[in-house]
């Protein structure tokens, strides 16, 4: 059972807190711009080198077994296709309930991530298993819709029983420097979420620079996001190690600054156990072990689970496993 703490604050509270953090009497786009552009820039070469060096750690035997089980427990098992059917969502839920029929000790993933109209189906299939249902909302993946449509999309998913909402930010507004619009939209969606947990997708592949990733992270946290998430998975590049490193630094520093802990979710392109372990090393080294739980760190993935299961079987049997021993998703 994943417990998720959700901070419910009104829009006024959020704005008041933002003013407090920024040290201004009125929250204007100018104030936000000065603050975001005053955050130190990212040393691109240093960041990439640090991410690469953390990727070289050797994690073997019992540590590897622990990492595999931890990673499985952090997965948001995802299906976000136009061709998704009720049957496909049900079979994904069945897989989440029993990831490996050959080994009942296999942990379950943290959540199922689907489009809003599939929430009820997923909810019914998962029952009281404790596996959360996350829904993407706000005109995912482009985010190109009016605010009322985005809010209706969000409320719809929450009413259907979604425990977590994955929203996308308006990258167009962000890139044109209209930070206040992005801030306000996140805040409004946060209100619409009610008790549901809000993950803010920044779509880092479209943000062009690492500086922008850092600014978007701070902006999302300032606006009340419970999680910051790299990508929709529909844009390449999706999650990368350097981008995740910047986000982990941001949540660490944000807790220093405000006392509020925010989670991180890399999503898209994480396909192998080796990749997942690199991310876990980075979580431990950059953010710290406080983030090393499904409550604060998630993987948005679909094929990753199968690779983790194959590696788990390899550790259990001593022989390399194969695709015949996991489901075809």
């Amino acid at each position: 059972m994943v417990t998720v703490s959700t901070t419910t604050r009104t829009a006024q509270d959020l704005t008041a807190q933002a003013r407090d953090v920024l040290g201004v009497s009125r929250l204007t786009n100018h104030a936000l711009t000065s603050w975001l552009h005053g955050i130190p820039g990212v040393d691109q070469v240093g960041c990439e080198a640090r991410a690469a060096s953390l990727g070289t750690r050797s994690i073997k035997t019992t540590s590897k077994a622990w990492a595999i089980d931890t990673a499985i427990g952090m997965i948001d098992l995802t299906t976000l296709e136009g061709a998704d059917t009720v049957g496909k969502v049900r079979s994904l839920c069945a897989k989440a309930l029993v990831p490996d029929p050959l080994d009942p000790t296999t942990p379950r993933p943290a959540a199922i991530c689907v489009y809003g109209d599939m929430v009820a189906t997923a909810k019914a299939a998962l029952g009281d298993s404790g596996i959360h249902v996350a829904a993407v909302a706000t005109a995912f993946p482009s985010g190109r819709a009016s605010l009322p449509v985005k809010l209706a999309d969000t409320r719809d998913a929450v009413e259907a029983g979604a425990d977590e909402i994955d929203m996308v930010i308006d990258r167009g507004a962000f890139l044109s420097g209209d930070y206040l619009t992005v801030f306000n939209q996140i805040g409004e969606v946060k209100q619409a979420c009610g008790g549901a947990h809000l993950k803010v997708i920044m779509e880092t592949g479209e943000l062009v620079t690492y500086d922008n990733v850092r600014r978007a992270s701070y902006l999302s946290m300032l606006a009340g996001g419970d999680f910051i998430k790299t990508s929709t998975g529909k844009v390449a590049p999706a999650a990368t190690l350097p981008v995740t490193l910047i986000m982990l630094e941001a949540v660490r520093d944000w807790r220093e600054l405000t006392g509020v802990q925010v989670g991180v979710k890399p999503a898209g392109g994480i396909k192998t156990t080796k990749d997942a372990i690199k991310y876990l090393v980075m979580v431990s080294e950059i953010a710290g072990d406080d983030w090393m739980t499904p409550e604060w760190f998630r993987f948005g993935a679909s094929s990753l689970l199968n690779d983790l299961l194959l590696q788990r079987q390899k550790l259990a049997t001593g022989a390399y496993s194969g695709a015949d021993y996991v489901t075809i998703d």
Partner: protein
Amino acid sequence: MSRLDVRKTYKLYIGGAFPRSESGRSYEVVSATGEFLANAAMGSRKDVRDAVVAARSALAGWSGATPYNRGQVLYRVAEVLEGRRTQFVEEVAASEGSSARAAGAVVDAAIDRVVWYAGWTDKIAQVLGNLNPVAGPFFNVSAPEPTGVVGILAPQGSSLLGLVSVVAPVIASGNTAVVVTSADRPLPAVTFGEVLATSDVPGGVVNIITARTAEVASWLAAHRDVNAIDLTGAAGADGVDWGALEVEAAGNLKRVLRPALADGQPVEPDWSADPGLGRIRAFVETKTVWHPKGL
């Protein structure tokens, strides 16, 4: 002024590329008379694992290619082998300690063998398949299909003719292969990889690992994503017990082709003999289909 030698680095052949061993190890290869020939990559279990991944991903394309197309590609392999004849004669002579004349005969036989199997690709179904007589208004058709990813322990003695004789029948029917070469005579196999890479054989269809056979054989035999294993190279390999390998292969019900036996001991077959269809038949599955007869 004397020219510096440009020495060849003998590497592995995995997924159409020539990587060094993941382990970073290499070992000295010596001629039949004990002279140093080259350093070869010493493949590890992780190289085997990578090779199986490559073979698995190549399987759909290769088994889905038409038999006619596979025949053409195999014939192309023979053409490129022929073009590199001199190089192979040298390597075989050095590895096996034979005269240039004897090595030349071996290389010619290897080329002819590839041509022979190239001719078989589009005839396997006619010979191993059948229209079965049944008591009902149905066509009942049995057709051979490739088994899948096949692990091959290549013969320890015959470094080229033996190698070709075990690899060609496996890929002729549409399987993909992970080949562990002769431990002491790996050089012609690496050069054969270069032939495959330049003759339209898609990357991953044949993967070649030079290694100590005893170290990697059990990983290949136990690998759950390998569908069959050819234990020919267990004969004469140090520390390899083919019976134990067969037991490990049972873990996922692999097809096993046992080594040739003489008095209960594994021996290397006579590669100059007529190969017959045995090696093709060992790595195909028969699919039988019932189809209603209409008028």
